[in-house]
């Protein structure tokens, strides 16, 4: 497999086409625009439809419409654009339509700035839209992992009939790394729910999110939550490095900040500090199984590092049943924490632990 050098955004776009994505609807926004630009150039040549819509709201509604046919569909945007999409994302979830939504996060709130951020963690994992629903959320931390994620994101979206979000940030979208594309042949599937024309051979398939009778709506939501239970059971992904029975401190981080954390942890190892890392690769479902193991390993302290004001802390506390003290270090507004800043936090915690004082 020959390697090539790609930006995160381009690699994601190339992977989507190779994964069988046939329609892309979107509206440009920095730092995500290379996805649209790459697909605009290449998708028509490869038998796909690229359409730049008049707004993010139109784009996501096109995703809903086209997704009803069971075709592989994707849209992408960056934070403010994703907020605009929220109503239709709820409709997509309620209609059980599979699709992939990419958020190349920039700093918020509001129009914010164009530098990288992770401040849409809550939006992605808790409530991108009204009503009881979830999305499967992946948070890759390298260009290669972005590519690998795209392939199974489409598979999982179809398997569970759920919108899947790939949560990136401006740093991963803009940076270049060598990447290889796996062999993958997608044969479009026939779905018994898809609205592809009944040809007088079966009943109409109706895809809808309006249920005026409470008992009908409740059954529909409950059935969806049965699927969510399976997702929670089977789809948690997590990377745990340098954690054993002697580990004192574990640093929890996801996406690009996890790259900075690894550099900081290597520096801490040189100072003899017993520190490891845990990186959720799925943000929903949150990898609570791997976090629970930290309790058995008698980890003394967890430091979460994020490019936001600490949106993942509660999930870490809940997953570790509040049995391990959790502290936080983060930067926001588009500022990226440096390895030195994180090292300083690790050293501070290590000193406190050795002094017998646990924050």
């Amino acid at each position, binding site marked *: 497999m020959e*390697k*090539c*050098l790609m930006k995160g955004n381009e690699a994601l776009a190339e992977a989507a086409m190779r994964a069988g994505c046939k329609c892309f609807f979107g509206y440009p926004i920095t730092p995500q625009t290379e996805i649209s630009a790459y697909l605009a150039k290449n998708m028509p040549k490869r038998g796909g439809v690229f359409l730049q819509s008049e707004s993010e709201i139109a784009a996501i509604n096109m995703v809903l419409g086209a997704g009803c046919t069971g075709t592989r569909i994707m849209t992408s945007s960056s934070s403010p654009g994703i907020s605009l999409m929220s109503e239709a994302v709820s409709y997509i979830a309620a209609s059980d339509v599979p699709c992939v939504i990419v958020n190349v996060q920039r700093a918020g709130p509001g129009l914010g700035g*164009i530098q990288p951020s992770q401040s849409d963690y809550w939006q992605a994992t808790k409530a991108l839209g009204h009503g009881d629903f979830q999305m499967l959320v992946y948070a890759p931390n390298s260009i290669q992992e972005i590519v690998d994620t795209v392939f199974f994101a489409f598979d999982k979206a179809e398997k569970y009939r759920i919108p899947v979000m790939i949560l990136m940030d401006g740093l991963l979208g*803009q940076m270049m790394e*060598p990447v290889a594309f796996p062999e993958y042949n997608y044969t479009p599937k026939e779905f018994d729910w898809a609205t592809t024309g009944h040809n007088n051979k079966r009943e109409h398939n109706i895809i809808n999110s309006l249920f005026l009778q409470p008992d009908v709506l409740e059954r529909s939501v409950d059935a969806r939550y049965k699927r969510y239970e399976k997702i929670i059971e089977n789809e948690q992904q997590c990377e745990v490095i340098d954690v054993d029975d002697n580990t004192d401190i574990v640093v929890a981080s996801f996406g690009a900040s996890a790259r900075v954390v690894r550099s900081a942890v290597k520096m801490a190892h040189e100072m003899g500090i017993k520190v490891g890392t845990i990186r959720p690769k799925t943000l929903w479902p949150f990898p609570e199984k791997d976090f629970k193991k930290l309790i058995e390993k008698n980890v003394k302290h967890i430091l979460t590092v994020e490019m936001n004001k600490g949106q993942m802390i509660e999930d870490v506390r809940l997953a570790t049943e509040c049995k391990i003290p959790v502290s936080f270090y983060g930067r926001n507004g588009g500022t990226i924490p440096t*390895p030195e800043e994180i090292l300083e936090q690790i050293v501070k915690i290590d000193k406190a632990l050795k002094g017998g004082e646990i924050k």
Partner: protein
Amino acid sequence: MKDNNRFNLENIKRINIILGHYGCGKTNLAVNLSLMLAKAGKKVRIADLDIVNPYFRTADFNSMFEKEGIELVSSIYAVSNLDIPAITFDLEAIASQDGYLIIDVGGDDSGAAALGRYKNIFEKYKEDIEIIYVFNKYRMITPAETAECLREIEACARLKATAVVNNSNLGLQTVAEDIKNSFEYANETARLCKLPIKYTVVPEWIEKEIFGDNVIYVKRLVKAVWE
């Protein structure tokens, strides 16, 4: 005058316009060229003409330029995080001044559009100008597509490239083998572009003895926070 780059600096013309497909390494080459010339005691100006990308641009390196005595000419909106495609300087006046001028242009035809308006100026200095088309094999682009991209760029820039530069690399992970494996591609691209290969760009961490002349060794200046 020949420096340890095994490349004769006398071969570098007074004005260098650097064109190329998106993400082929134009800015890294532009900054390295200006550093080489400045270290050889030349007066150098570097103009950031990128109207496409608000990230990873020449103007990001201003503190280094100040240290090396290189004059940066850029839009007042560069490094402001404002995504405004404006050129707020007089390139004609700058081109008429003594000393070397490196012009870093935005990627693809959309970036080259910024050059179109300067056609008349560039005609005036025709003898002094090298118009370099940079390519990187590893950017998932075939020689035919690379040549096609050059035609699109030339149409927008209203200028014809005078040479190609082989900047094939895999970023920080580049090894000598990757450069060697790009020669066939480079020759084919040069043939399709109907242009000579001016030089090959090699990252500085690769052994200097492997390649012959016409090689420029460059630093990798764009780095991630964790590198």
